[in-house]
């Protein structure tokens, strides 16, 4: 696959201190084929090549470069890389039968072929902006709809393999950075509260209410009986409330245990800058604490939180092995991770006014 340069998560202008990114996925199936789990290998290959066939036309229509590949023929490292930036899902990696991928240059748009369904169109936007992501995904959906017939029921909408996707086939999600809520011990309460709104909140780097890096995904649970707009609106409303709570709790943190938190933030910087062995979980927590400091203006870093979010992705195994162009065992990775972070941690901006 081609070397990609500017990725969507580099976008510092779109940076939001709580909402890292918004993403919309549309699940679609082509008529005349069984769903991927039940397809023959020949059919799977046929679907992949049909969908990959639109790549050139898609580039022309969208005015940007798109690349396509056979995912089942990529190396594990290449696949991990794409998973780490949330471009593809782990279940696409696990598929043994022919599977495909079309991605935009910046990886913000991906069309996964033969994941749970024939087509998963996914559009991601950095920051607090779900509507743009939806518009993009919808536009691509319209185009694909015009060249190959989907399978659709007037009663149940888009028919999908998983019953929890049927209907709109749409899952909208926000990736949220919630150090305030986590440190304030409110994750469990929030998760319970939130289920009333037909959305779920879960840690993506860990399990349930614990998430290294305080990063959580907020996603709609229901797809049938709502319009796309209703799903987006609902998610936006819940997100707005979470953002408010998070900001309040962050303020509260500094008010109550300010010295301790400030110390932790500076310590994080020191360790990331000089430690020689950094397991992934540690690095994730340290970067997240530093991000909290930067978001709250306690510490000033070149590039701000956006640069730190980028490091969170780049220090993961797939990216790390791609950057250093070698396969590594986990012990070796921890050393290279430390090396990478030592060298790439953004500089501190000295702030005279803040220090007395």
């Amino acid at each position: 696959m081609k070397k990609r340069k500017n990725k969507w998560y580099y976008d510092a202008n779109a940076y939001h201190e709580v909402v890292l990114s918004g993403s919309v996925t549309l699940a679609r199936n082509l008529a005349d084929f069984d769903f991927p789990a039940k397809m023959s290998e020949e059919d799977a290959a046929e679907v992949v090549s049909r969908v990959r066939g639109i790549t050139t036309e898609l580039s022309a229509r969208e005015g940007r470069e798109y690349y396509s590949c056979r995912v089942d023929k990529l190396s594990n490292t290449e696949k991990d890389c794409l998973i780490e930036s949330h471009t593809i899902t782990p279940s696409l990696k696990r598929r043994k039968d022919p599977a495909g991928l079309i991605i935009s240059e910046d990886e913000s748009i991906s069309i996964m072929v033969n994941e749970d369904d024939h087509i998963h169109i996914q559009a991601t936007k950095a920051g607090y902006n779900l509507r743009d992501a939806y518009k993009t995904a919808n536009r691509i959906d319209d185009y694909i709809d015009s060249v190959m017939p989907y399978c659709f029921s007037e009663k149940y909408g888009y028919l999908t393999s998983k019953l929890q996707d049927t209907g709109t086939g749409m899952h909208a999600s926000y990736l949220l950075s919630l150090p305030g809520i986590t440190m304030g011990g409110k994750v469990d309460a929030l998760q319970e509260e939130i289920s009333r709104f037909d959305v779920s909140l879960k840690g993506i780097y860990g399990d349930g209410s614990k998430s290294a890096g305080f990063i959580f995904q907020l996603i709609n649970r229901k797809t049938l009986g709502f319009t796309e707009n209703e799903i987006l609106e609902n998610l936006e409303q819940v997100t707005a409330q979470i953002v408010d709570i998070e900001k309040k709790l962050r303020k509260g943190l500094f008010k109550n245990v300010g010295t301790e938190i400030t110390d932790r933030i500076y310590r994080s910087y020191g360790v990331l800058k000089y430690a020689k062995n950094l397991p992934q979980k540690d690095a994730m927590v340290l970067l997240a604490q530093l991000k909290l400091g930067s978001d709250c203006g306690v510490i000033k870093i070149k590039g701000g939180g956006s640069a730190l979010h980028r490091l969170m992705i780049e220090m993961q195994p797939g990216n790390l092995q791609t950057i250093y162009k070698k396969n590594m065992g986990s012990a070796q990775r921890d050393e290279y991770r430390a090396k990478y972070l030592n060298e790439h941690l953004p500089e501190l901006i000295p702030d005279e006014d803040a220090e007395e």
Partner: protein
Amino acid sequence: MLCDVCQTRQAKIFYTEIVNGQKKEQHLCEQCASEYTAVPLNELLGGQGLSSVGSILSGILSSYAKGKSLKNDDHKETVCPECGTTESEFLKTERAGCPFCYNVFSDMILKNFKAMQGGMTHIGKEPSFAKLIEIKDVIPVKPGRGDMGDNDRKITLDADLDPSDGVSMAKEDGKKTAPKKTGRLQTRSAKISELKEQLKEALKVEDYELAASLRDRIKSYEVKNEKKKK
């Protein structure tokens, strides 16, 4: 019983682990169980985007299946003639293998949607060209109305497997031809009167749950009809 690990919450999960022939039993609460059986961090990295909501939603269908098998012992397993998905497979994975599964397992799907989804009818986006799959309505078998379940299933299967019936192909090539609007409108109007009949029937037997879902569907068809007319 309290959880063996935290000793504070109620134990809900009985976890049996057999390592090298040694059996180890634990009574855990949900939180501790999820920690105990957690996959290492690396495995979970990148679970974003399409990550399955499924893990938290499972269980509904399997409990339904239990109740069903209790009712009649000589219950034969249904198999989708199109893709070969078996009933037990479907109940376990809650996944359809092909569009026809939606008809073959329609009663279970209805059950799942009732519990898990926001409505019984799609009201969102519609494709401009699509292969329309007709899905039959399931009228739950009420005591006293006779066992029409199996008959019901057979009829639809025959209808659905005939390509000329129930499935209309709207387009083939890349160019936009005028969609068969009138054709679909007629089906819709026919559908509405059919649904109204069913609604009457449902009200007669005082099945208000079904009636409400029928009412919603009629409404949505009427709205769609209005839209198309404009």
